[in-house]
């Protein structure tokens, strides 16, 4: 799960990671009153969307008076912000973060992520702050310094010192850096984070080491025990169809093609998308209906797929294991007889009781296309889409 920058900073602040003073604003009035209560004479107005590259897209601006803050808030709130991560369609800005200005002397990078290959979390720092870390990794990998976190001990003090030395921090900055890294790891560890990125991590003119930006992603499997984090979910950042799918425990991801698909199991669902593409079509979605493919899940699946007006045909690909194919077939027949599906439906059922299922489908008065193999199903669905 993703959260906004201002929410990440709330979490970090609670865990003693230094962040600039500031808070969220949902209206222009709130933006101005927040700036007023922060005091000072320089404020940053930051668009809050779940995507990076906001500065370059015009979503981060500096205001030197309350009037300027007001003008910037008016300009950014409601704007359609396009960044390299939003895609060309952009995202509407509904929330702002108003922060005090910070006197920056150095821009650095700090991040924590799971290293799947080493099976440990890795804490990374770099002197190359403010640029994308993927780019640094590609061009100058020697500028990224990493320490791996042994799960029994967490980030140790000597490791935090290694990181601070690697960044060339000295004196008061060094002490602040070591403290900051220890606190950042604690914040990460306490909330089932899957990724934390502080880019830039800044050294201020007065020697503080501070998270000027903050991105935190969370392990969906940990959300049940992270109530505070779970409540930070912003469903306006998600597609309504995907949010609805999740509420039924279905995994639906909308794609750009026109061949809808409904599959049991995530791996088979991906493979079904892949074969649709291989035979000349474009998959419209990923949809895993899980182990229980009954008439209820099947009709929910149809409804989800049909929320996408691009869909021109639907392929149902179910490998019946413990769930018998004839039951799935009955579910499909029941679902189709109670709802209108205006596009051609291709059904491929394989596995336990596949023959009985085929008979059941053959005897049904409903109009659908029966396929005999995975490839056959993909070809028929692509053909039916008119591609």
């Amino acid at each position, binding site marked *: 799960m993703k959260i906004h920058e201002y929410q990440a900073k709330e979490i970090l602040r609670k865990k003693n990671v230094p962040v600039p003073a500031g808070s969220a604003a949902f209206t222009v009035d709130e933006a101005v009153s927040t700036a007023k209560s922060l005091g000072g004479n320089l404020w940053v107005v930051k668009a809050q969307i779940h995507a990076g590259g906001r500065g370059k897209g015009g979503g981060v601006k500096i205001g030197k008076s309350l009037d300027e803050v007001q003008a910037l808030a008016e300009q950014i709130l409601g704007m359609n912000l396009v960044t390299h991560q939003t895609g060309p369609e952009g995202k509407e800005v509904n929330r702002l973060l108003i922060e005090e200005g910070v006197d920056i002397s150095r821009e650095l990078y700090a991040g924590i992520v799971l290293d799947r290959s080493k099976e440990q979390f890795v804490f990374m720092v770099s002197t190359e702050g403010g640029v994308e870390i993927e780019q640094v990794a590609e061009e100058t990998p020697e500028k990224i310094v990493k320490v791996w976190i042994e799960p029994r001990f967490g980030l140790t003090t000597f490791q935090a010192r290694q990181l601070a030395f690697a960044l060339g921090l000295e004196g008061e900055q060094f002490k602040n850096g070591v403290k900051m890294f220890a606190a950042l790891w604690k914040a990460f560890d306490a909330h089932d984070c899957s990724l934390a990125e502080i880019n830039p991590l800044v050294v201020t003119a007065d020697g503080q080491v501070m998270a000027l930006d903050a991105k935190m992603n969370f392990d969906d499997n940990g959300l049940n025990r992270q109530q505070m984090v779970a409540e930070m979910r912003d469903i306006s950042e998600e597609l309504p169809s995907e949010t609805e799918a999740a509420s039924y425990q279905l995994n639906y991801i909308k794609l750009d093609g026109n061949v809808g698909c409904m599959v049991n199991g995530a791996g*088979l669902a991906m493979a079904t998308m892949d074969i649709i593409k291989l035979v000349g079509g474009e998959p419209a979605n990923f949809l895993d209906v899980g182990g229980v493919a009954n008439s209820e899940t099947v009709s929910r699946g149809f409804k989800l797929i049909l929320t996408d007006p691009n869909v021109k045909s639907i392929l149902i690909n179910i490998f019946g294991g413990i769930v018998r194919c004839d039951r799935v077939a009955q579910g499909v027949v029941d679902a189709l007889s109670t709802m209108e599906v205006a596009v051609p439906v291709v059904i491929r059922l*394989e596995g336990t009781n596949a023959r009985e299922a085929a008979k059941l489908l053959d005897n049904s008065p409903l109009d659908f296309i029966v396929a005999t193999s995975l490839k056959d199903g993909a070809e028929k669905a692509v053909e039916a889409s008119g591609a």
Partner: protein
Amino acid sequence: MSILIDSKTRLVVQGITGKEGSFHTEQMINYGTNIVAGVTPGKGGISHLDVPVFNTVAEAASQTNANASVIFVPPPFGPDAILEAVDAGLDLVVCITEGIPAADMVKVKSFVIDSGSSLIGPNCPGIISPGKAKIGIMPGLIHREGSVGVISRSGTLTYEAVHQLTELGIGQSTCIGIGGDPIIGSTFIDLLSQFDDDEETKGVVLIGEIGGSAEEEVAEWVQASGFNKPVVAFIAGQTAPPGRRMGHAGAIIAGGKGTASDKMAALEQAGIAVVASPSDIGITMKQQLEEKS
């Protein structure tokens, strides 16, 4: 032959009295798996599906000589169940449970590695050595005894591959679903090296997917170790968008890494027969076996 499990495996089911545990215990018994004990804390002393139930895995192991366990408990109890089975000294622990946080698995895995037990999963369908034993939730019927090993990060996609093999008359020695999570117990490489030592296994089907670098590591290992049984690989997620989690917790292209095309290229470079289409897995293995003989 087979790897990991055979007709001598003595299985304990953790969570045997739950809904999932009960259902699959019955299925496994019907397949012929030798289930010697169940564990549900607080229900020790009863008999469930004619299987004696114990309060702890240690007790079950000492009373019945169990050497393997399968875990059907809800995710919050999964890590503890794995630790309990490992602590009881079982050789093999298969965790079916989906939804265990990665941070927990990081800790659990480091304990498992030091223990000498093998862990399969979590978030996996389990293991089957056709005709001998089934430890998991896969449909037994689609399998057939034979000489091809299958290792997969997926569930139903594995069944699809097995079905293709069986339809072509190619049986399987052992099929293992290693799990769709970012941190899992035994890896592709751990199991490939066991298949290497298993004389009866003549070839291996490997089913990977987007996310992580396990497939790239296989490619390196195959070249370094000189593994020379035919391997047919399919990578799911060639059409998956970056940054989205495709159902499995581990199936995500992050920061441009973990794409299907990178994995396919690495495996091809290692001399592995990579198929772009999931419907070509069986037929390609057939061709590979014929070429080899």
